[in-house]
């Protein structure tokens, strides 16, 4: 994919969007402010224009998704692109974040215009090792945020903390205004924050469709007495199954519907986990290395699925190592190293950020090996 990250998002680049530049500390402040202001005004205008066009465009989306019978990843990709172009949403609309991020300072802990998650002073220590030490992080609603960093940076631990799978030593965070400190992980999921796992947890000895049905939220049949009685949940089960089948179709897993999840390939399992998490009807989806172990052919379709999540109105936060993927779909990137957030910003700016380079390559990356310090 090209370096020009802007054009890859497929939407018509509006003429108002300024050339994206790393914020140059040398440039006079007034210039930057002006450019930023202009961008945000334009973004707001564009957003306004699109709000009126929301409904028909969503219908288009759906018909296109349901339509294509093609199973090749390439064809799916094409149809996805068609969706984008027929609908012609400028990115600064339903799911756009490009405009939204225009006046966000590219600094760790910067505030976002409409954050869905606000985390403060989160610290997790294991004995002497400080795994996570995040001062502040705000995650923009309805955007795709990437969380990157070298191994051991604390990304998965941070995920675990946010979703309740681990408890911080100190700190607090809110999800859509609701404080989550001390909330059990299943409740966090019920509130709409759903995560996937680095090592896929497709429930192997259950079939694909059973996996999906399990994911459905608000099931009456999951209560002991009602489960026994049968009739209270039959109808709901039927509806859930329809919804599951639709999702499976969307993720191209409908042909393995009745297979045991254990017999699926690695990539198919990733898709299953993602599809299953959508059965919970989450407002925010947190994907932990969704590309890991997935074959390149499937990667592209996975990317499109992620973009679609955002376009549906959900927030996406994902951890990834594959920089191409990160560059291609993220609206905003957060970089962690040694437990701290060392940089935030639009994806294209980070390649030049010295701190990021140092974090990945080590501070002596220019030095000769064997040179005395």
């Amino acid at each position, binding site marked *: 994919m090209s370096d020009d990250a802007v054009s890859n998002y497929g939407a018509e680049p509006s003429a108002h969007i300024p050339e994206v530049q790393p914020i140059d500390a040398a440039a006079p402040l007034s210039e930057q402010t002006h450019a930023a202001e202009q961008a945000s005004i334009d973004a707001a205008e564009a957003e306004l224009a699109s709000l009126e066009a929301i409904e028909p465009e969503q219908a288009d989306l759906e018909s296109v998704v349901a339509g294509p019978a093609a199973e090749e990843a390439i064809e799916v990709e094409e149809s996805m692109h068609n969706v984008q172009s027929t609908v012609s949403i400028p990115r600064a609309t339903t799911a756009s974040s490009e405009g939204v991020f225009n006046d966000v300072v590219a600094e760790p802990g910067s505030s976002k215009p409409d954050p869905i998650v606000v985390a403060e002073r989160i610290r997790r220590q*294991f004995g002497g090792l400080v795994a996570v030490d995040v001062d502040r992080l705000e995650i923009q609603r309805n955007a795709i945020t990437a969380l990157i960093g070298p191994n051991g940076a604390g990304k*998965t*631990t941070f*995920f*675990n903390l946010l979703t309740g*799978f*681990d408890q911080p030593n100190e700190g607090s965070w809110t999800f859509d205004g609701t404080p989550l400190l001390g909330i059990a992980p299943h409740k966090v999921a019920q509130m709409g924050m759903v995560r996937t796992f*680095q090592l896929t947890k497709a429930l192997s000895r259950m079939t694909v469709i059973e996996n999906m049905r399990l994911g459905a939220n608000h099931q009456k049949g999951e209560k002991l007495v009602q489960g026994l009685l049968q009739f209270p949940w039959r109808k709901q089960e039927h509806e859930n199954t329809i919804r599951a089948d639709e999702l499976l179709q969307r993720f191209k897993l409908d042909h393995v519907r009745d297979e045991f999840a254990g017999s699926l390939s690695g990539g198919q399992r990733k898709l299953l986990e993602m599809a299953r998490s959508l059965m919970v009807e989450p407002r925010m989806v947190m994907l932990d290395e969704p590309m890991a172990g997935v074959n390149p052919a499937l990667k592209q379709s996975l990317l499109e699925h992620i973009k679609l999540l955002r376009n549906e109105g959900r927030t996406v936060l994902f951890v990834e190592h594959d920089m191409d993927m990160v560059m291609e779909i993220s609206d905003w990137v957060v970089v962690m190293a040694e437990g701290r957030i060392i940089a935030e910003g639009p994806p294209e700016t980070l390649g030049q950020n010295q701190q990021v380079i140092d974090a990945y390559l080590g501070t002596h990356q220019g030095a000769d090996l064997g040179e005395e310090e």
Partner: protein
Amino acid sequence: MNRTHIRLIVRIWLGLMAIVGVALSASSAANAQDTGGTITVNVFNQTKDAKGVATKVAVPGVTIKVSDDTGAAVTSGATDAAGKVVLKVPTQTKFNLDLDVATLPKGVVLASGQTEKAVVDFTVGAGIGGNKSYNYFLGKDDRLTTGRFKLLLQTLVNGVKSSAVLAICCIGLSLIYGTTGLSNFAHGEIVTLGAIVTWLLNQEGPKLHLLLAAPFGIVASALAGMGLERGVWRPLRKRGISLTSMMIMSIGIAIAVRYVYVFMSNSKFNRAVYYRQYHAQPEWSIGPIGINERDVIVIVMSVAVILAVSYFLLRTRQGKAIRAVSDNPDLASATGINTNKIILMVWALGGGLAGLGGVMFGAAHGLQWDTGFNLLLLLFAAITVGGLGNPFGALVGAVIVGMATELWTWVFPSFLEYKNAAALGALIITLIIRPQGILGRKERLG
């Protein structure tokens, strides 16, 4: 002798008869009129010195109550300085005595076998002069705090003995869990095997001295462990069997082997059998503590073996390899350690130690077909309390479990039979407070 002398003798004899007759009739007349009698009660505190010579010490101030056969109170009185009280009763019939223990002085209780109630029955023997007597014997109160403290010391020593045997047995169990992840429910049977083989060589067959027979028992157990590993676990591990399956298999093997012991011995081991030596041991007294030669040997040997094993695990290359595999088998094998060889070593070591523990336990308590099985639960409690997978945790756990069972008997001397429940209770409490055990490590998520 002339007629005058004979007449004198007859007169004197008749006179004597008359006097006796009058006296007799007078006394029976007296009895007929005055049917009352007396009961003399003596209360003694009897102590035996070191040579077993008893001395009686009178106990004053003790109240004795007298009631008749219907239970109605008749009279009562307290012993004087000589420990004696004379109680008058209206008729010479049957009476019940009741010593009021509340009036006993401090430090003195009824001697064993002595009850506070007694029966004095005039109808089976009128006693001399209408008086019957009864003696109450008292003894030292062992439940005093000073006695209690001495008992505590003894209990602690017993705890050390108990912990020593447990520790020897469970190091192996912990290492097996650490290196292979298997909760080996057949470990008890390996313990029993060591004890049995030793017994066979000691009481039957060549009738070796215990100290000569024991090494054979230990070797037999070590071989059994290695046989299990090579013949059962390793091939199954290669096939990818799950840990749960292996654990349940070990349960099946344990059941089968236990009953094989009974079967092959023709039920000889249904009741406890003992070794020829070191069974009945004279007790030595070291201050307030009673201990015997066997216990000393067991404790000293245990400590020596534990130190040796610790040194082995900490300082030698093999020992470090064992700890590495225990910690992270995949990583260890990636660094070139031959995990299968290490695991075999662990089973040999663990088996041998189990056998040694079996011999020690058998020497002290005798051995039965289910000796090992009865210990198994305590062994699991010990390694769980100490932290699964950590051999030093097993030692800590063994000390805690051993001490807990003995201390229970000190705190609740009349609830001896529940002491195992106390150990299991300690297990549960430890896991509530510290779920990973004392030396265990909390697992990181992800």
